């Protein structure tokens, strides 16, 4: 049922969205501020929205209470503002307001704030979704779908036929059998599909902080791409000297100590695409994060070979994010740029710390591939 409040509520939500946009960079670099709530909702703390008035500085001004206790005893807990009983001052410093918004809304805000372009859809879309379309007229239905014109016509026809129509006082009272309603048919529409293949170096040189950066960044990439494609899948590959596919949880929490052979991950990704994601039907986004250390130049060269021959022809974009770590040499990004720098599908980004995440997201998603 629609309520009168809906419009006011909508305008309030707009203000909330504005506040989130203002603080977006902060939310991005401090990923833990955003709480997940179920499948499609997140909750975000924003500064209290209020109408400022001339009022007393209520901080620590005290008040009157009731109950047991000696002078000097704690009140137990923080007294809250009573409901309008006229207590001095409302705010105790910075109140935060927890607001829930959907991931779609969050993605829109991200898109607007970072000026991300919509993605050009490449796949041919095999998955279809159903949608209701109003196509016809029928005799029964809910009042909200009543077709006024048709109902009027029926009523007029009946009145004339029964001789009850007076053209000087043309009043019509539609009877039950006059009423006509819109009816609908379900149609199916194609939906774009996309898959993100996350790859991460979990060798000894990638510390917790580096993984945290990857986790935050992948959350935002997920959110944005999910907004662009309805059926988004994510796959996760970790590698040190060998690569294997894991679930999301393992992806972010594994730490190995071995050496690093990036080619192993690329090989596995290529295999995955080859077997499960035919490129004419899927939009494919491999993201690779590492600290830029690779075992040998030979391996780096075979990485580039795999990219050029197997991966790049099939994907929308290949993204490489290099997280700065105290142990990594940071060589890999230079090699990539040297060999593949002029390929439009390759995007590289260096992420020095959490504050650089925003810029890096923009690097990755700013092209609209």
């Amino acid at each position, binding site marked *: *049922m629609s309520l009168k409040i809906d419009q006011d509520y909508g305008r309030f*939500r707009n203000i909330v969205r504005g506040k989130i946009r203002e603080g977006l960079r902060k939310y991005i670099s401090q990923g833990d501020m955003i709480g997940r709530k179920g499948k499609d909702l997140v909750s975000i703390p924003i500064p209290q929205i209020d109408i400022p008035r001339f009022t*007393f500085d209520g901080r620590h001004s005290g*008040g009157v*209470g009731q*109950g047991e206790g000696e002078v000097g005893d704690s009140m137990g807990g923080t007294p809250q503002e009573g409901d309008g009983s006229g207590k001095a001052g409302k705010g105790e410093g910075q109140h935060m307001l927890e607001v829930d918004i959907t991931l779609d809304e969050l993605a829109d805000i991200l898109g607007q704030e970072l000026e991300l372009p919509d993605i050009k859809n490449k796949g041919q879309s095999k998955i279809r979704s159903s949608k209701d379309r109003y196509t016809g007229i029928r005799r029964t239905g809910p009042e909200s779908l009543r077709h006024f014109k048709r109902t009027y016509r029926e009523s007029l026809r009946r009145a004339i036929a029964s001789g009850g129509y007076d053209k000087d006082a043309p009043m019509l009272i539609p009877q039950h059998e006059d009423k006509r309603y819109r009816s609908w048919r379900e149609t199916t529409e194609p939906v774009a599909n996309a898959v993100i293949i996350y790859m991460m170096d979990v060798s000894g040189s990638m510390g917790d902080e580096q993984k945290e950066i990857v986790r935050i960044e992948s959350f935002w990439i997920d959110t944005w791409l999910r907004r662009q494609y309805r059926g988004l899948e994510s796959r996760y590959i970790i590698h040190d000297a060998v690569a294997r596919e894991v679930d999301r949880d393992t992806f972010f929490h594994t730490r190995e100590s071995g050496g690093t052979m990036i080619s192993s991950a690329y090989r596995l990704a290529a295999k995955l695409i080859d077997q499960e994601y035919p490129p004419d039907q899927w939009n494919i986004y491999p993201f690779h994060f590492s600290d830029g250390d690779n075992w040998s130049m030979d391996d780096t060269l075979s990485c580039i070979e795999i990219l050029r021959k197997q991966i790049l022809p099939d994907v929308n974009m290949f993204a490489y994010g290099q997280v700065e770590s105290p142990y990594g040499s940071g060589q890999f990004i230079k090699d990539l740029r040297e060999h593949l720098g002029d390929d439009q599908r390759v995007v590289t980004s260096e992420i020095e710390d959490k504050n650089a995440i925003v810029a890096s997201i923009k690097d990755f998603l700013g092209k609209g591939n």
Partner: protein
Amino acid sequence: MPQPTSRTSLPPYLRQEQERIEAAARAAGLDFFPVIFEMLSYDQINEIAAYGGFPNRYPHWRFGMDYERLSKSNEYGLSKIYELVINNNPAIAYLLEGNSLTDQKLVMCHVYGHVDFFKNNFAFRSTDLNATGKVINPVLQGEHYKPNRKWVDRIANHGATVRRIIDRQGIDEVEKFIDNCLSLENLIDPYSPFMVRSEGPKEEEEPRPVEVPRLRAKSYMDKFINPEEYIEEQRQVLEAKQKDKRGKYPREPVQAVLGFLLNHAPLERWERAVLAIIRDEAYYFSPQIQTKIMNEGWASYWHSRLMTEGVCNASEIVDYADNNAAVMATSGGQLNPYKLGVELYRSIEERWNRGQFGRDWEQCDDLDRKRNWDLRLGLGKEKLFEVRRLYNDVTFIDEFLTPEFAIDHKLFNFEWSKRHEQYEIATREFKKVKEKLLTQLTNLGSPFLYVDDANFENRGELLLTHKHRGVDLRHDYSQAAMSALVRVWKRPVCLRTVLEGKPSMLRFDGKEHTSVQEAAAE
């Protein structure tokens, strides 16, 4: 009275209860407007509550925010709106669908208490309207005038007016202006509806020669006690002051800032209309803030009397007691206005029944005798009805909160302890407790701000003065409110206040906030 049936009207079994309760309330001596109950679902009641009880109001995002807060705290089971009744004739009250019968009865009894209070308490007289729906000054009416209180219509009309303005000006502009007006909403003088002002400008009086007050002295001592030079000096000071005042507008500081702006700010037509609406509604809600403790106490007093003296049947009494206890609970040392109010009424009733008032009582020092004081006067009920007619929270607490009451109900002051980083009980001393309570209730809990000069420094700037009573203004909010003032006044605005013990002058010129410490004024 036959009522039109609609989707929200009461089912027959509740209509029956309503009739029974109404009869019981009338028999108990309550005197109320007719009451219309409506039955609403959660969604609907949250919506109505967000709109302050009114089915139609002007559009504004703040109502949407309240709605979200209400429905959220509802979902999480933090709070449940128990009763919602509006001061209107006929009064309109809402019941929540799905509440138990005991709850519904409790709410109905409570509502009849409120409606009796709306009809009879003097503060609500300022919400009387005349036949054409204009606010009238109750003081200027005869003894038995017949006002109406069609506020539901009036506030719906406000909504229609604002919507029309929005159609012309665009929602963003209008809503922003409403934000500004709401920032100034509390700058009203709660007692001004009862003041009688002479029409038109006062006769310009011939300036009288200044007379310097002299100390009394025998004639031969006069020239020593009141030396000529000193008198001359004082005369000059006083003359300068008088001259100052003559050119000043307003002559005397005006507390009803909102009304002053409405009359004197250079507003566009639509802006004036919006400001008038905000002000009108601020005055409408002011009696409810003025009598929160009394009103809730009165309604609670009567629901407990009515429920336990016939409305409840034996099987419901435990449920009733349970719910009543929840409403009356004080948690974490908080003062609950329902509880404080109802206990004060009970104490008044008992005191006047036993004759515990008047000179003999006041002058009695013997605690034991006071405890057992009983003249069997039986004046309690009469006194109660008198109190509910003639008092507001401030006078109510001032007159009836006795040291004995404060001890019996364990009242205390709490303060923030810097050392322990927590609120602590500061004192149980009666005088201080009462003083704190009264301070919080004074002027609807808002600071005293006055328009001091509408042409400050001869630059058309608005000077407000804050009468500082021990607590500073909240600085960030003051700055924001001053921005709103500038938007309305359209010239720079100054505020004279005290910050951390030092007299200060805040100024906002539309771009920049400045704050200057002033030399201590006289």
